């Protein structure tokens, strides 16, 4: 199996790099038709026009666009993503500080969304044809209509303000310090032997992750249900019954294995959206991740950060897609073998 998959994944990675390059060009273009002048933004209000002009030349903003892009690209390939206008720190460092937090949030949310989605899909499939079906179907549309940021706010209102059982700001209790390490708090805290930090981190992640997870599960539920319905129309299911296999066996070994394929496809797309959804969730929960970094940068027109964070989002989505595609290749022999 490996020999058939590796060339396909290799191809995928090559395409991803290509896409990343194109995205960087597009980002560059979009951001450099700004109505705001980054040079003016980075100077104190008392600066004269001459000083601003000098700053512009210093920042290289007078050169033609393609040249500016190539300069930027060559710097990036050397690991230099520029300096933040607002924070006055290296951009790469800022991104690497915040990226693990967002990834942790996203991964946990994806797990929740997958579990809820698959279980919900099975339940929806199970009740089809019964009297409970219209109610549950209606319920899934209801759930669909609540985007993650509404869930976030609702959870804050309910669990944070009204019931006061869970925290909804930041990553840790205010008195705790981040342990040094990879940036992945759940891992670092256990590695440092601090279960109290671990639990604090978990508690802070519950509301945002469930908000994201619940928001993205209804689509998965509905696709799994309709995939199962489609699969059950297939001849081989009928024939499996004629061979005397039990319904349970048919569901698990035959139907699910086939129905999971289009579901997985959709999950890949949804997880891309989910990762984008972390942006707003972080803002709402004041969670120190990529999202908050981006929003601050946007408010300050801090171009280097916007560019780098934009690329970071794109990179993670491409990674997610590649991982999901790999799973898909493993599970679907038609794509691997001619």
């Amino acid at each position, binding site marked *: 199996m490996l020999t058939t998959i590796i060339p396909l994944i290799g*191809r995928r990675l090559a395409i991803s790099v290509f896409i990343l390059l194109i995205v960087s060009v597009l980002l560059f273009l979009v951001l450099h038709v700004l109505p705001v002048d980054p040079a003016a933004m980075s100077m104190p209000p008392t600066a004269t026009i001459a000083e601003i002009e000098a700053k512009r030349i210093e920042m290289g903003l007078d050169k033609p666009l393609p040249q500016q892009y190539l300069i930027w690209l060559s710097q990036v390939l050397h690991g230099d993503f520029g300096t933040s206008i607002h924070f006055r720190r290296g951009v790469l460092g800022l991104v690497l500080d915040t990226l693990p937090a967002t990834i942790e949030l996203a991964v946990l949310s994806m797990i929740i969304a997958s579990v809820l989605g698959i279980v919900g899909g099975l339940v929806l499939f199970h009740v089809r044809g019964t009297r409970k079906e219209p109610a549950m179907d209606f319920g899934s549309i209801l759930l669909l209509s609540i985007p993650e940021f509404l869930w976030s706010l609702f959870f804050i209102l309910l669990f944070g303000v009204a019931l006061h059982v869970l925290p909804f700001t930041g990553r840790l209790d205010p008195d705790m310090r981040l342990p040094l390490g990879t940036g992945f708090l759940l891992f670092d805290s256990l590695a440092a032997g601090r279960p109290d930090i671990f639990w604090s981190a978990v508690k802070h992640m519950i509301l945002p992750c469930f908000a994201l997870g619940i928001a993205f599960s209804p689509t998965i539920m509905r696709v799994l249900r309709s995939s199962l319905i489609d699969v059950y129309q*297939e*001849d*081989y299911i*009928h*024939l*499996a*019954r*004629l*061979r*005397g*296999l*039990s319904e349970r066996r048919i569901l698990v*070994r*035959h139907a699910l*294995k*086939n129905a999971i*394929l289009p579901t997985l496809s959709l999950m890949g797309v949804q997880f891309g959206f989910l990762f984008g959804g972390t942006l707003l969730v972080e803002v709402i929960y004041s969670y120190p991740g990529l999202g908050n970094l981006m929003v601050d940068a946007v408010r300050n027109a801090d171009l280097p950060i916007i560019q780098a964070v934009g690329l970071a989002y794109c990179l993670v989505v491409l990674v997610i897609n590649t991982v999901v595609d790999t799973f898909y290749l493993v*599970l*679907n*022999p*038609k794509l691997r*073998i*001619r």
Partner: protein
Amino acid sequence: MSMDMLIAKDLAVSAALADGTVPVIQELNFSLPQGKILGLVGESGAGKSMIGRTVAQLLPPGFAVSSGELMFNGQDLVRMPAETRRELLGREIAFVPQEPLSGLNPVLTIGQQIDEHLARLNVGNRRERRARALDMLAAVHLPRPADLLGKYPHQLSGGMCQRVLIAMAFASRPKLLIADEPTTALDVTIQARIVQLIAEMQRNEGTSVIFITHDLRLAAQICDSIMVLYAGRPAEYGPAREVFARPAHPYTRCLQLSNPSMSGSGRGLYALPERMPGLSALKGINGCLFGPRCPSVVEACNRRQPPYVASENGHLAACVRCETTPAIAAPALVDVGAPVLGEPLLKVEGLTKTFRIDSSFFRRSDFTAVKDVNFTLHQNEFIGIVGESGSGKSTVARMMCGLEKLTAGSLTIAGRDVSDGSKASQAHQRAHVQMVFQDPQSALNPRRKVASIVTQAMEATNDGDWGERLARAEALLSEIGLPPEAATRFPSQLSGGQKQRVNIARALCVAPNILVADEIVSGLDVSVQAQLLNLLLRLRRERHFSMLFISHDLSVVRYLCDRVLVMYRGEVVESGPTAEVFADPRHPYTRTLLAAVPPDDPSAIWKPQPVEGESAAVCEAMVANA
């Protein structure tokens, strides 16, 4: 002691439809002894597949056994608890389906699926099961069984999948096998082999078989007894050769006469009018279900359902007019002898089509679908192109009307070379050649009314308003035998045969000289097929056009076409006047093809080419040596 394996006593199945209960199967009576084969013959909608479902008690929702008994080996199948029945399925009762390619789970290997089946049969441990699986695959003559176990269904051909399914069915040495049209979806040469395989396995294991088919000739060859079904009620039942040679029921006889023969008996086709009543129409018929279409019908037939009349050796027929049956004859052929050929209308030289397959970013492989084909089509001539799947015949058809561009070669239509594919050439091509498509379901836009479809050519040139188009549509419809009211209906309100007529009418709108018909009667019932074939012959008499008739059905080509081209893997391997080619085939592939059709006379021994690997390997060797 030969006990009856399956006994049906007055079995009736009914369906709860929106407007009441309708009988789907009525008065089903048969007994299948051990080790014998019963053929269930009927057109689509006759209820034959429903019987298989009834045995397994896997009826669609709303369908249920309303009365009667179905006894398997002394056990009551209908009243048996579900768990007990599930124990029987796959063990003592086995099934072979119609569509082999979709009968296997696409994400599991063959080995995994066989292993699952054997595990259910409690065949020892993994190693034993694997050994058993290899034996099973060898028993159905599959090459390199060890490799096959690791393959997925999509890597196998239809014939190979069917062999695997047959192997799985016989793995448990079942007492009863139900084969539901097991060869309909397969190529002709493969069909013959599979049927032989089933017969061979059946002989070895002593299994009783219910063989469901629409092909009476095939059933007469391999079955011991035959039951002919019409609209859910048995019309005739008796020993196979007897039913075939001396049919008692008029329907059986008409069915026989609707089938074109391979030897060109010089008779026309008997075309039964209209079609078999569907489920919803059954309620309105009080008397004999076949009455409205029967040539021997009298007043008494319409009053009540005719009882079963027995003749000697257990031959039953549900008819009160059996004595008139032998007299039913097919109409004589109007055009006797070869038609007068006119000018050469279409000339093809060195026709080649290569498809480019971009399988990956860097690799680009070519697939030659058609290679160096030559023929000439004269006015008033019908040429048949026969071949199996992958022969390239459909591609040739598409090139004739301009749906595919030629990769090489020349195509001359009415004196003008249209191979360049220029706009002017295309217009010229369109005016002279029109295509009738195969699948009436996808050939008619469901959103357009029939009149709009039929006069679509007028729409292209903005010729005429709706009134004129409607008039033209009605004229065309009457020419092909549909009432003028059909013009304002939608395709979904028409039957398959009617849709195909609309298809033909659309092609005739521009009055082309040449019609290209790509498998236009495949998938239609025999009686509808006969109607359409007779229609084509009549149209030829009236309009004097030529036709390129593509088909995999040799008997149809024999009936309809003056000349035939036999295609194999993109090349024409043999061509000539139909009668000659069929009587004395030269090329080994043609011989294989013709031998694969069951002979007209059931007492003749049917011997398709011996099996040594797949047909392809045999023919390739022959082609290389030829």
